[in-house]
């Protein structure tokens, strides 16, 4: 269902062609990173710390090296030592010492799973056996697993050189940063409130859960050049980070994008890539490394668990007047949680005059977190959207009406940055109000319906594209944006739209780092927006040149050539026969040579995204198990280029949000060792755990974008945990303040409520 508010009459955009890479992917031909192999290739494996926090006293590798078939063993001593300060690596600022030490631990193991050494051997089995022969001497240190413990005075310190501005240059700390965001005067604001709700929430660390483990094949050649085949969200990031970690010039590294089996933000940094090159350099052979699922869970970048206090006040008539929030996020072993984004999204959907938000980035003995779909926002929305629900109830106002009363719209100030331009939050709430789901009655015991909304900034950043016109009139579109979920099709559709070409005559190609201009990661919901913009501009560039050729053929000026519906025709008709691209293309050689359209963007004016999600649940009163009965998500998608893949993003994000809500969590024991290192116990939803997912695409075009595109990938994950919590409340009367709302937690809360009810009843007797 698409409610278009975008008046254009497109031919290709908005249709649902079969994706160009589809056949390869349903026949098993598509090559993902782990599918590459080369003659003489060796297999690498990584030894990982079994301890959460330990000094590495010594590493003995002789026995491993002596095992027949083993070709190399490396430790951090084989990597250059890098400065412990923020530095530019490509486009990002990053502490390279931290990055390097996360790839191979230097001096200290900071989490269960921290890489200690790597081996290359003639088979993966031999490499694995070699790991057992490496002797590491550890001196155990007390693990620090929660933000509360890490922030306590006297807590064991993870990084002796870590400092924050507030505590000054002399104080050792686990708090990497404190940020504050302020508007108005919250104390005054709360005075004006008739109702105030204050709650503390906890959310567990969760993983993106992409099905494809990290992988890399590195080939170092004798002339000093390195080639890396890997499944990454950003080939250029891999290039710049490998360059920094290995001390090899960027220009000597080529990164070839393999197909990628999911990322959700988790494949925007490097783990194995530098090791593949390092091991290849030492052995002279191509080296392939593929993580096991246990390694993925223990040692890649999940997203932060968090503690969030959220206090909001509203007047009787349902106007929000003040919000005060305190957020502390687990960064993992090195600084860099998304707590800033959490702080900047937590109350942004609402127009609140007085806000005060404090945010803390805290290191703990857990893996260094990485981005996960709208990083930081889901934790935050769990808190604020539950409090909003409670306030709506106190005011006696329907939660959707309450949101409409307070919704941010064009001109509303954001927590940070300029006021919103045209956004579609209100439209998503209206869409839910008008949905068949909302209009249906939910009946039956132990059932409840909940709603929540979510906001995400989206990003723009840099992209490059070229559009080649071939002599048969077909077109190839080259970008540097890895295709994780159908973006090739979208790029081809944009070029086809501009050039009036049939979608089957356009071939989208994702090029390696030597074959296309710089392009930032496929992430931040930016690929359709920014790379799509580059493709649009590149196609326009090609079209301009094509018009010039037509003009030349007709001996007219380019302005005298019109183009519509795939036909070049004279602006004022006088005798010449209109021409199609297919007719023109064979003549290019005679009218000046090949045509290549090109464009680069550093996209500004990104359109933020909003979603509102409605969930019906049924709770088993005896076990606390929650069944999702029905779910509908309404999202402002700007302009859906390929609606089926936009729906796919909405459904996939919602599914991940539901997993986060109900059962997913990192479970560490008291020693800081991860207990659920497999997908049997890291419980992502199966298809029996989810119902049909209804989607409503609302199209409010992003101002300034030539096609009105808005990023769609991230925001749908934001509302579900709060929506489920609100639904559980309606079903049971219990407000859940902790994620996941797993059966034991919910049962405990229900029993507690029943006991309280019983004692109240007893008191009344």
């Amino acid at each position: 269902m698409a409610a278009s508010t975008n008046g254009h009459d497109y031919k290709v955009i908005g249709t649902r062609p079969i994706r160009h890479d589809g056949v390869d992917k349903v026949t098993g031909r598509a090559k993902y990173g782990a599918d590459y192999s080369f003659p003489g290739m060796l297999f690498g494996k990584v030894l990982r710390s079994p301890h959460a926090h330990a000094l590495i006293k010594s590493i003995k590798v002789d026995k491993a090296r002596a095992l027949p078939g083993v070709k190399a063993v490396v430790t951090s001593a084989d990597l250059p030592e890098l400065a412990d300060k923020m530095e530019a690596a490509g486009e990002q600022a990053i502490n390279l010492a931290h990055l390097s030490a996360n790839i191979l631990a230097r001096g200290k193991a900071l989490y269960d799973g921290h890489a200690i050494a790597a081996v290359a051997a003639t088979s993966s089995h031999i490499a694995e056996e070699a790991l057992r022969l490496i002797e590491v001497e550890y001196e155990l240190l007390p693990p620090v697993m929660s933000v509360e413990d890490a922030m306590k005075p006297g807590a064991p310190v993870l990084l002796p050189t870590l400092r924050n501005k507030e505590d000054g240059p002399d104080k050792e700390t686990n708090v990497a940063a404190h940020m504050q965001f302020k508007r108005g005067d919250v104390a005054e604001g709360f005075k004006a409130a008739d109702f105030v709700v204050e709650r503390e929430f906890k959310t567990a660390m969760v993983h993106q859960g992409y099905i494809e483990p990290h992988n890399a094949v590195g080939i170092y050649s004798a002339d000093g050049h390195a080639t890396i085949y890997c499944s990454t969200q950003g080939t250029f990031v891999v290039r710049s980070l490998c360059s920094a970690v290995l001390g090899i010039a960027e220009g000597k590294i080529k990164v070839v994008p393999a197909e990628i089996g999911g990322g959700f933000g988790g494949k925007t940094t490097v783990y194995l890539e530098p090791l593949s090159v390092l091991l290849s350099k030492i052995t002279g052979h191509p080296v392939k490394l593929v993580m096991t699922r246990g390694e993925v869970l223990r040692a890649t970048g999940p997203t932060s668990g968090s503690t969030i206090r959220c206090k909001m006040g509203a007047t009787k008539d349902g106007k929000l007047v003040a919000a005060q929030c305190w957020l502390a996020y687990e960064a993992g072993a090195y600084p860099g949680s998304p707590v800033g984004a959490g702080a900047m999204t937590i109350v942004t959907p609402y127009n609140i005059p007085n806000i005060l938000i404090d945010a803390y980035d805290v290191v703990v003995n857990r893996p260094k977190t990485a981005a996960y779909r709208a990083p930081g926002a889901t934790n935050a929305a769990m808190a604020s959207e539950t409090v909003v629900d409670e306030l709506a109830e106190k005011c006696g106002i329907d939660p959707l009406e309450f949101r409409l009363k307070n919704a941010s719209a064009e001109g509303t100030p954001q927590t940070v940055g300029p006021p919103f331009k045209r956004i579609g939050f209100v439209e998503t709430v209206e869409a839910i109000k008008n949905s068949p789901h909302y209009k249906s009655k939910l009946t039956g015991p132990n059932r409840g319906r909940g709603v929540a909304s979510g906001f995400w900034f989206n990003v723009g950043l840099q992209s490059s594209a070229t559009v080649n016109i071939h002599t048969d009139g077909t077109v190839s579109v080259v970008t540097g944006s890895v295709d994780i979920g159908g973006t090739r099709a979208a790029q081809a559709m944009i070029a086809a739209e501009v050039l009036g070409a049939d979608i089957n005559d356009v071939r989208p190609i994702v090029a390696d780092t030597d074959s296309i201009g710089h392009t930032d990661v496929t992430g931040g919901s930016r690929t359709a927006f920014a790379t799509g913009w580059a493709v649009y501009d590149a196609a326009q560039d090609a079209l301009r040149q094509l018009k010039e050729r037509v003009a030349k053929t007709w001996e007219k000026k380019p302005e005298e050539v019109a183009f519509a519906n795939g036909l070049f025709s004279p602006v004022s008709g006088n005798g010449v026969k209109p021409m199609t691209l297919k007719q023109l293309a064979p003549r290019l050689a005679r009218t000046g040579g090949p045509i290549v359209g090109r464009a680069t963007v550093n996209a500004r004016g990104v359109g933020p995204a909003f979603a509102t999600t409605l969930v019906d649940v049924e709770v088993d009163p005896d076990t606390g198990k929650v069944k999702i009965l029905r779910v509908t998500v309404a999202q402002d998608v700007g302009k859906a280029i390929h609606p089926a893949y936009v729906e796919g993003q909405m459904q996939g994000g919602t599914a991940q949000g539901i997993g986060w809500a109900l059962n997913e969590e990192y479970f560490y024991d008291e020693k800081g060792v991860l207990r659920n290192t497999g997908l049997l116990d890291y419980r992502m939803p199966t298809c029996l755990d989810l119902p049909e997912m209804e989607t409503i695409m609302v199209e409010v075009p992003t101002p300034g974008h030539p096609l009105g595109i808005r990023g769609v990938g991230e925001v749908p994950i934001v509302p579900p945990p709060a929506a489920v919590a609100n639904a559980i409340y309606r079903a049971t009367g219990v407000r859940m303040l902790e994620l996941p709302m797993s059966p034991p937690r919910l049962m405990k809360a229900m029993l507690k409520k029943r006991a309280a009810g019983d004692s109240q009843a007893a008191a009344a007797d």
Partner: protein
Amino acid sequence: MVKKVIVEATINGDPVELLCEPRQSLLEVLRDELELTGSKEGCLTGDCGACTVIVDSRPVCSCLMLGVEAAGKNITTVEGLATGATLHVLQQKFLEHASLQCGICTPGFLMSAKSLLDHNPTPTEADIRYALAGNLCRCTGYDKIVKAVIDAAKHVADGVGTTHHGKVPRKSASEATRDMLGKGEEVK
């Protein structure tokens, strides 16, 4: 010294003879020895289903079967699903319904779904969801996968059969749109 074992099996209809180390899983043998990399590795513990192949008409996680156990077996992998250049109806429906995003789970889902339709050509949605519960997809939320299998089953039931010779490669935009929008509404 460990003996390597000669294993004879039928893979995607062809007799195959290979020399296996007993510790190699069937998945490893398929991917590393036979270059059949369509079967994917997502966990090696039987949890994700990305490595699903059909062994003597049963769906099996090839990561939890030794290559040497394949002796004498008839094995179908995703590479054996299409008939020549003609896609299996499930492959076709997965494309039409946009049932894959990243596509890493797709081979496993296709094999589980094929096994289901082979055993039960008229499954209910509940049957489908049960049969696919051993396959994890993190991208799609399963909605479009389930719809594709429902649609494929309809074709099988209509007698178009699993040997459906639909012309696969991309349709024209308008053709595809007509198809998809029509069906999309019908399913919704």
